[in-house]
């Protein structure tokens, strides 16, 4: 028999520790990225300064950062919802991509709203099978969702080349969506679309819903302790499915918003791994609403600044992947150790 004495940390120190936990992976990433830069004859400090300036120095740059953060808000939120329910969904990438293709195609014929709805439904479609398999047969969702990403990639590639290919375009892409079906710009002339507003509204809804709704309560309890939840009469299988479907819908909507707001069509390489970066966003933000926003903005800043930094220095954009991948690896360490 043992009694484990444990202090009850007050809220202030809890916020501090979670802040600390979120900063550590970034510091490690900056150190590793710095080593790479140094080894290849660049000054890391100068580059990091450039990054900060290029991400937050001026309205245009902030707009670019928010624009780059928008898809990550969607994918980060989609991942966070599933994680919160204890479902390890790594299939948000697939939902995002199919949502993009579906949104772009439907919007072409039926307009903006229909495009968004269709995109969300496409995302639901992607997550439905792993969700059902997990809830009904306890099939490991990590592998099924991971694999579904590749299935979606092949499927969308085929759909585009076989049926939806725009005429007169060299690479595989769907026709340009008419301007009337675009998501309106928020801050013309900067390329920030109202997609970011949709995403932020969703994040806020999530914050309130997860904390104060009956379903949000059940989702949290299922994520914390499924055995306890089942014994208290929470239908765990149903909660898992609901969380996965919502996650899929948000991923699909994110893809549609990206297609209708930014790319204005669906093209090959539509998502440079937004779904996977979304995992890092959710982990770093510890599945909380505020954390997802901060994480998305940070990764968005990296991406947008990396793109322009590439123009001003001869440092390739790929360094951004080194940084964000490192954050991903180390963000997890913090999250899983506290369990």
């Amino acid at each position, binding site marked *: *028999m*043992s*009694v*484990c*004495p*444990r*202090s*009850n940390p007050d809220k202030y120190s809890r916020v501090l520790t979670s802040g600390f936990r979120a900063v550590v992976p970034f510091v490690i990433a900056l150190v590793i990225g710095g080593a790479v830069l140094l080894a290849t004859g660049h000054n890391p400090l100068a580059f990091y300064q450039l990054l900060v300036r290029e991400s937050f120095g001026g309205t245009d740059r902030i707009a670019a950062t928010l624009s780059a953060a928008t898809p990550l808000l969607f994918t980060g939120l989609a991942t966070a919802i599933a994680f919160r329910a204890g479902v390890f969904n790594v299939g948000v990438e697939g939902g995002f991509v199919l949502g993009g293709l579906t949104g772009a195609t439907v919007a072409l014929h039926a307009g903006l709203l229909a495009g968004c709805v269709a995109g969300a439904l496409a995302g639901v479609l992607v997550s439905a099978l792993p969700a059902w398999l997990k809830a009904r047969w306890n099939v490991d969702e990590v592998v099924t969702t991971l694999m579904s990403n590749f299935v979606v990639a092949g499927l969308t590639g085929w759909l585009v080349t076989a049926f939806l290919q725009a005429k007169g375009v060299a690479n595989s892409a769907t026709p340009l969506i008419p301007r009337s079906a675009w998501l309106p710009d928020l801050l013309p002339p900067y390329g920030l679309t109202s997609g970011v507003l949709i995403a932020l509204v969703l994040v806020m809804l999530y914050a309130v819903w997860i904390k*104060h*709704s*009956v*379903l949000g*309560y*059940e989702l*949290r*309890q299922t994520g*914390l*302790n499924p*055995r*306890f*939840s*089942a*014994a*208290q*009469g*929470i*239908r765990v299988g149903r909660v898992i499915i609901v969380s996965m479907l919502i996650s899929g819908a948000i991923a699909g909507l994110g893809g549609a918003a990206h297609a209708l707001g930014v790319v204005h069509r669906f093209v090959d390489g539509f998502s440079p791994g937004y779904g996977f970066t979304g995992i890092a966003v959710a982990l770093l933000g510890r599945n909380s609403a505020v954390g997802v926003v901060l994480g998305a903005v940070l990764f968005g800043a990296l991406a947008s600044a990396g793109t322009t930094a590439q123009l001003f220095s001869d440092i390739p954009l790929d360094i951004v992947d080194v940084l964000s991948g490192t954050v991903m690896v180390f963000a997890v360490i913090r999250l899983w150790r506290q369990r």
Partner: protein
Amino acid sequence: MSVRLGARDVSRAFGPVRANEGVSVEIRAGTVHAVVGENGAGKTTLMRILYGLDQPDSGTVVINDQPVRLRGPADGIGHGIGLVPQELAMIGSLTLLENLVLGTEPRSGPRIDWARARGEAEELASRVGVELPWTALADNVSISVRQQVEILRALRRGADVLILDEPTAALAPAQVDDLLRLLRGLREAGRTVVFISHKVDEVLAVADEITVLRGGKVITTRPVGDLDRTSLIELIVGQQVGFTGFVPSAVTGDEVLTVAGSVSLSVRAGEIVGVAGIAGSGQDELVERVVGLRPPDGRITLAGQDISTLPVDRRRAAGLGYISGDRRSEGLSMDASLADNTIAGTHRTLGRHGWLKPSAVRAYAKRVLDGYSVRYGRTTAVARTLSGGNQQRVVIGRELDRDPKLLVAAGPTRGVDVLGMTYIHDKLRALRDNGSGVLLVSEQLDELLDLSDRIIVLHGGRVAGEVPGGPASRTAIGTLMLGRTPS
């Protein structure tokens, strides 16, 4: 050399809990020495210290008459001490032979010399008089067989003192007999055996000397000849504390629960029905079927309504309450707030149009927690921060506050101190006297005898018999638990 293994004035505390206090034991070579006591008497802590898994706060371990410091299990093994833990370190997908040699494989180069391994295995097995299916997977053999392999493994690793921690907890009676025979065989082969148990009959049947622990202290060490059943039980239990005595039900009403299936029983309103049996006799299955966590194998009715196919939430809505025997992973969500723990199961009725009002949640939680004298700071504190007794009060409060027609209480006082136990017993009786039915599953015979109006004894997943509550039924239950019929 007389003392092969022992403790001299050993104390060990975990926070406020004094698991061992000035414990001294002497285990002589070539004997079977039993260490007995109730749950929480400090047996396991002492054994962990003797093996080197834990270090005493003060006092020393004695090996071959010399005081020694054991820094880890490796030291214990080095001194020829082997531990057969309750959680067997057996790997299900490996064969028994593979499990036996794992870590100390006989080899020729990088290859395992299977012929030699098999030879050693057979030799060991015949020395203690067992026969084992060496090529079977550990997953496919009984716990009893796995335990024998575990014992042989300790011997193969050079142990001549074997510590067995509650080895009979999960064994059927015939298997217990086999184990006791094996232990006697070990003694005849010159080994020393330390046998931890709280089962009086087994101890009397096999031990040469018996040390009784109670409340972390040694009460006595005596040769087995000086003791009989009654005197040993008295020594183990001591003065009966925490038990207010048997008070049978005044009025019973209609049946609130009927179960028909591999186990059939019924509970009437105003009645506590106890369920006894050695661990693994079908108690868990019964509880899970009634609560709805396991597919039914027959018909279950709650207050006349067939609930066999209803999910847990509908059963709860129909008037079922459930105190889980596994507080840490099922009864409570340790990382969730007290408020969230308290409203679980009631949260749907607390909600308005799908939303939970924070003030309403807080008020509900406060009312329940205060009503059941839980000592806590804020309702936002996580359950883990409470002491074990307080945690159990949260569970009790959550379940009783709903005034269930039927309460399923599995091990309701497990890990709770004497004061908390009395409190919980009073609450259960009050619930009964209010006209609810209680299905009480417990490993503690005294608790069952004290609280139950009737006691159903399970054996091998079936009902072995039924006896009335009260102290007079003790012997009959013991016999039924072993699958025999009382004379």
